[in-house]
């Protein structure tokens, strides 16, 4: 069984969560024996609510940062596919990460070419049932394309039906409402945590909030809420005015997915003396951004799901650029960011293509500079990245 690969920084604060996480494989194994089904998914366009409403356990399979799964993934995807995508199939091939072997089925949102095929690989080579979710790629913010949402809503309805069949359970609107309420609670609590690093006197670092978010991809969602409540309770007791001000340069990290356990770039930034305070990634704060609005008594909860999961997910493949740029600039402003480190996994074309726009938007609107780091999970370029990051911090610091 896999040990947890989440490296919590504030171990005292997060001891209970860490213990809870370590127990998860055993609990899942027991639950499975009792007939509970486990559903894996990758991209945040996939509403966990539908899995929970069908009385199954959702797991977001987003481990990353390790070399072996990338190599194993090359049996399926070309060597110039992004290392995360290769890991999505490589972990299953290696079978040494508990979560990838525990799932009874996976849901795949069609968010890039590699993810599209990963579904078929899982099905054909590992005999795992898979359910797809199509997402319209253009749906501008002025809602001039109402048919986009209709299409997505139909996709969600179909997924709901498939999941219900797989679970052999009737999924009512009431079940969906309940799971929406649960997921909204998680989002709201995570958001409370993500707001702390806006201050120079924060009782919790952004990195730990990321760690907590990652733990929440794995552990039982109801238990996760208990853990979140406990963490927030402790944090609220801390007098922030007593915390010494953190004067390190304030960095926002953006770009490709930061997988569970992928800490190469984060470590380089921290070791160079900077503080990561915010992010613009789909495994970080953007995962918990915006709740699902609950309809009135007669409305359908599917409407709220379609609205939230179509318009409020930070995927460059799906979201129109002006909306993304506004969001990026707003986060940079709210968190008093001094520089953006754009972590681009090699061969992840959709994120790479956006960098120039992001760099210009931040510089023109806030005079915040950006640094592009294109890399993979191998350690060979750590020296070069360190030089780039240090030079960037020297540039931001301006003392030299």
């Amino acid at each position, binding site marked *: 069984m896999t040990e947890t690969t989440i490296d919590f920084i504030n171990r005292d604060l997060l001891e209970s969560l860490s213990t809870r996480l370590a127990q998860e494989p055993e609990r899942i194994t027991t639950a499975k024996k009792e007939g509970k089904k486990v559903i894996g998914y990758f991209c945040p366009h996939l509403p966990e609510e539908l899995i929970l409403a069908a009385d199954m356990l959702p797991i977001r399979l987003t481990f990353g940062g390790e070399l072996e799964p990338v190599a194993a993934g090359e049996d399926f995807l070309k060597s110039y596919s992004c290392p995360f995508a290769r890991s999505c199939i490589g972990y299953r091939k290696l079978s040494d990460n508990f979560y990838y072997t525990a799932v009874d089925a996976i849901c795949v949102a069609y968010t890039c070419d590699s993810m599209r095929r990963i579904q078929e690989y899982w099905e054909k080579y590992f005999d795992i049932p898979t359910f797809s979710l199509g997402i319209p790629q253009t749906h501008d913010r002025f809602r001039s394309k109402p048919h986009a949402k209709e299409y997505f809503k139909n996709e969600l309805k179909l997924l709901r039906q498939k999941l219900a069949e797989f679970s052999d359970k009737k999924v009512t609107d009431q079940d969906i409402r309940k799971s929406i309420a649960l997921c909204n609670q998680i989002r709201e609590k995570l958001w409370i945590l993500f707001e702390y690093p806006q201050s120079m006197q924060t009782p919790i670092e952004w990195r730990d909030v990321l760690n907590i978010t990652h733990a929440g991809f794995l552990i039982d969602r109801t238990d996760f809420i208990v853990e979140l409540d406990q963490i927030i309770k402790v944090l609220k007791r801390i007098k922030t005015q007593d915390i010494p001000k953190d004067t390190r340069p304030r960095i926002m990290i953006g770009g490709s997915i930061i997988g569970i356990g992928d800490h190469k770039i984060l470590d380089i930034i921290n070791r160079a003396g900077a503080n990561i305070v915010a992010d613009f990634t789909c495994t970080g704060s953007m995962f918990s951004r915006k709740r699902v609005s609950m309809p009135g008594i007669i409305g359908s909860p599917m409407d709220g799901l379609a609205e939230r999961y179509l318009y409020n997910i930070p995927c460059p493949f799906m979201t129109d650029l002006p909306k993304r740029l506004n969001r990026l600039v707003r986060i940079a402003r709210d968190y008093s960011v001094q520089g953006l480190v754009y972590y681009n996994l090699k061969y992840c074309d959709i994120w790479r293509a956006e960098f120039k726009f992001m760099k210009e938007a931040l510089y023109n609107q806030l005079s915040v500079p950006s640094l592009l780091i294109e890399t993979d999970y191998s350690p060979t*370029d750590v020296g070069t990245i*360190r*030089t780039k990051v240090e*030079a960037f911090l020297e*540039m931001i610091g*301006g003392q*030299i």
Partner: protein
Amino acid sequence: MSNSIVAGVDIGSTTAKALIMKDGEVLGGLIGPTGTNPALAGKQILEKVIDGSNHTMSDVKYIIATGYGRVSAPFANKTITEITCHGRGAHHISPQIRTVIDIGGQDAKVVSIGEDGKVVDFVMNDKCASGTGRFLESAAQLVLHVPLEDLGELSSKATSICKISSTCTVFAQTEIVSLLAAGESKENVIAGLHSSISNRVIGMAKRVGVKPVIMMTGGVAKNKGVKNALERDLSTEVIIPENIDPQLVGALGAALIASDLFNNS
């Protein structure tokens, strides 16, 4: 104060450089091979420079280490990246400089600097050594069999420029072998290599914006063929430092920063 010396030590992948200053004046600078022990190479070249200036190590009050080997230089008071140092050094040589193209042994950088010599933006190649000094060195030694220093001169005798599409050190060698086999002259092939470097570096430079005046630093700046190719492809003049070895610009910047930090302390 009269005996207070500050030093910049730039430990690159191929060569280690040291430069010392006193009261704002350069006392001397030297270049030596990095070899297999970067920290030792840095220390030795610094000692050699100090010996040559009739001072002793104890006169050195502040040392900044830069270059990829900076992290393994325990004798330094502080480390600063070569990106910042090249910017500062180039600005000191000529305050009009806005873009520095530094091509060293294993990396290439384009640094955009402001009126005050501070870095505004930069790009640096990733882990691959394509289009760097190593690229030229391996081509010269392994397939062209000419001394590295002669490349510039030889390329000026080219009658036409061979098209070498690969900037990968390994692939380019294969391409060179084919070109030579097809009867192309050595000179034309070398001119092609220089063009290939120029294209690669200009591609990087466009990401930060190429603002004149442009200065070229690092070992490859000594190769006139690359300078000429850059000037031709950029349609603008590229300045090579005259009164100081272009390889010493990073160490100069480091010494200048050392001087600032020492005076402020």
